[in-house]
């Protein structure tokens, strides 16, 4: 069975495919468990991303940003044209993939930037600019964060740690004691 392309599946999840393709993808999903599961993962990820990307950063004017991105693409295209050799067989056709790729890159960068900047801070901690990797610990466990994103965390298991600790060299540890065996397990994450 030929599966739906990843890109199309992602676009379908957010309702960004044409009506005809939407029907075709829906038909495929009805008979393909793998793609259906994949689509559900996209949906879960999309909801998670939306929950943190819902609000634009304070003071951000989307229209201005959009115009700036468009302008940047145009400037890039114009600059490319200035330095490009004059004698080309089909210059008009060759710009299309370049423009699409440039747009994708800008949109991807903007999307990642918006997402990375707006992940929630830990409750109670100051919302300062977190560009450097940092370790965070509280009674729930330990976490390594960079660009506001969780990069590594110890404490995915059941129960809360009995103790957490961190060193100024960038190591954080969480200590767990098994309820049945009393065995102590210490999980660590490292900034460096």
């Amino acid at each position, binding site marked *: 069975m030929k599966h739906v392309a990843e890109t199309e599946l992602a676009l379908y999840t957010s309702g960004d495919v044409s009506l005809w393709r939407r029907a075709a993808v829906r038909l495929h999903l009805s008979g393909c468990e793998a793609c259906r599961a994949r689509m559900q993962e996209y949906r879960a990820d999309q909801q998670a991303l939306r929950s943190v990307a819902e609000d634009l950063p304070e003071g951000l004017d989307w229209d201005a940003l959009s115009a700036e991105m468009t302008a940047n693409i145009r400037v890039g295209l114009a600059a490319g044209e200035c330095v490009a050799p004059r004698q080309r067989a089909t210059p008009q056709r060759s710009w299309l993939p370049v423009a699409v790729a440039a747009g994708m890159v800008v949109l991807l960068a903007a999307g990642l930037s918006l997402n990375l900047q707006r992940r929630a801070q830990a409750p109670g901690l100051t919302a300062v600019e977190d560009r450097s990797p940092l370790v965070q610990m509280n009674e729930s466990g330990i976490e390594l964060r960079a660009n506001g994103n969780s990069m*590594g965390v110890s404490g995915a298991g059941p129960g809360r740690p009995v103790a957490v*600790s961190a060193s100024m060299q960038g190591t954080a540890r969480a200590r767990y004691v098994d309820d049945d065996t009393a065995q102590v397990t*210490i999980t660590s994450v490292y900034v460096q």
Partner: protein
Amino acid sequence: MKTKFIIPVVLAAVTMMVSGQTLAHKVSLPKDSPVALIADDWGDSGASRAFALDLHVALSLRNTSSRRIHGITLTVTAQEMTAGGKGSISVPSLNVAPGDNFSVRGDLHLLRPLGTGGPQVEVSLDGVLFDDLSFYGPDKLHSRRSMTVWELEARRDRKYFKSLLETAGRDGLQKEMLDGLTRQADRPQFGVQIVRGRATNNDPGREVQFAFLQLPDAPVEPSDGMARIASNEVRAPRLQVRNKSARPIRHLEIGWIVKDQRGQEMVAASLPSDLALAPGASSQVLQDASVRFPQGTAIQSMSGFVSSVEFADGSFWIPSRTALGASNLRRVVAPSPEEERLLKIYQKKGIAGLVEELKKF
């Protein structure tokens, strides 16, 4: 929605970069490893999100050496060179006889590798500590140091509890356990962030001096400690240390305690330092890092104490229980992993179970 188009594109791009959801994993042990893998269970480990791996691993291992194993550290690697790509699982306070099996379980989230092929995780051995304090392993994570300190603390605490049992009987031991459980419940734990490198707070703050808790038998004397406090952030702690002992020192750790405006104390972090400190010599311990506390926290004072010292010959010093008790540190500092284990045994099996456990060592 304006981000409506960005989100699927980002998702699609990430997905295209990372093909497949199945978590490839392997357990790598050296040929002459003192432990052998009997079985591994990865449960529902997998790539849960675009950037994250959920790992739930349980390994069954056998002691194939001729000595008792008292601790083990395993490295868990998703990406070797990236922050968040690596973690470790340590099990201290073991007592595994040669030929016996034991289990190591761990739950971690790690940064998911982006590249060709599916996500892959490798578990490897960083070190094994034996009952004679000898060590086997590459020690890339300095686990020899951590596990040796945990083991020395375990011996110190078991000796104390056994002595208490002899002098004060089961009632005395039981009272000590109940006190330990109370301290465990009462110990404050704030949310803390530690940032390496530059500080992000624009407030220049003020310099605040450390007070040091002098532990009588400590081989190192700390002094002249300062740090800069700016709103809820404490930056760049630095202090002088002098080697009071007759042996050269190569590593030490200072415990750093802060007190907030409500008078609550907590261990903010440890200040480890690699140094070459000859007998009688002094050196500066400096950390280019900041500690952030929850908003609204106003740090009133700071204190420090020497929590461990490693001599150049590989031997260690740790504070005695008497010193910890006299300086009131036990109220603030977490107990040793062994004391946590014994407290759990007491909770589960009562005083009789605890006494039986102490007899095993």
